[in-house]
């Protein structure tokens, strides 16, 4: 659907000059695009409106477009998420992991649960000093049948997440499982909260840093990519 701004809205150059003391400057296009993963990652069911959500049907085509766009050379993924749907989260993480263009993730605030695979799926990951990541077991929603198969199914689903994280970060599988099932740390759940440097020390995230470090790393990866482009056409 196409739409137009309201005429005489505060968008006119004159109004802007009056309100902000500035006028429209010609805008350059960035060779680094940023993808923000905020709130709940929404999957197959639409969540009630009080949830701020990131929808996979928006993000996945955006990633395809970024991979194809000739002017985009790198992608910065900014995470402040409380997790969400396992399938949608893993879909985004797998897409990020299989892009040919350099990707750097930056965890700000929180990158909990399914936010963990998204953060580690990027080629290089950063976490700010104060950001946290919660690692805890997956729970089933909806009807739960009390049979051994339910447990096995859940275990299988959990393994999908664990395997992805282990494959894309420096953490060992036993270590990640230990963090996931640790008791006595969370008030309402079992698991662990990793704050800033702790996430780096256990090998989950590559480095502690902010926007400056993340962009510097992305530029470095872009330069490497320019010097030796990936073997398949981008």
């Amino acid at each position, binding site marked *: *659907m*196409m*739409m*137009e*701004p*309201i005429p005489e*809205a*505060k*968008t006119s150059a004159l109004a*802007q000059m009056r309100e*902000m003391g500035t006028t*429209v400057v010609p*805008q*350059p*296009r*960035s060779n*680094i*695009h*940023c*993808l923000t993963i905020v709130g*709940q990652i929404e*999957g*197959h*069911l639409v*969540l*009630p*409106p*009080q*949830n701020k959500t990131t929808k996979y049907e*928006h993000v996945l085509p*955006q990633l395809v*477009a*970024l991979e194809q766009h000739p002017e985009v050379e790198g*992608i910065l993924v900014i995470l402040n998420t*409380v*997790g*969400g*749907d*396992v*399938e949608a*989260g893993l879909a985004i993480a797998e897409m990020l992991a299989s892009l040919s263009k350099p990707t750097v993730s930056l965890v700000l605030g929180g990158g*909990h*649960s*399914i936010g963990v695979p998204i953060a580690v799926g990027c080629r290089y990951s950063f976490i700010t000093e104060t950001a946290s990541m*919660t690692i*805890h077991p*997956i*729970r*089933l*929603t*909806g009807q739960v049948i009390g049979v051994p198969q339910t447990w096995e199914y859940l275990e299988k*689903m959990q393994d999908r*997440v664990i395997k992805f994280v282990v494959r894309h970060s420096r953490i060992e599988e036993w270590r990640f499982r230990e963090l996931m099932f640790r008791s006595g740390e*969370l008030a*309402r*759940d079992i*698991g662990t909260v990793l704050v800033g440097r702790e996430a780096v020390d256990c090998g989950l995230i590559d480095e502690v840093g902010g926007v400056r470090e993340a962009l510097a790393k992305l530029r470095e990866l872009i330069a490497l990519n320019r010097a030796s482009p990936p073997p398949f056409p981008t």
Partner: protein
Amino acid sequence: MLLYTPLPLELVWEEGKVPIQRLCFLKGVPVLVEVTGRGEGKIVRVLATDPFSFLDVALTPGQKVWFREGE
């Protein structure tokens, strides 16, 4: 459906008021617009990946927009 989140599920599934939101393109940029009345709406979120789109004053969340006739 598997939700992997530290948020209590009763909070996630709590029923709330449903605002009508539509995905639109304004100056070629995807934006999420909340319909506020007949033919008009308010920008809720910019869904672009180009960081410079976020500097465009016409795309600031809260900015009012008109829907074109017949759309």
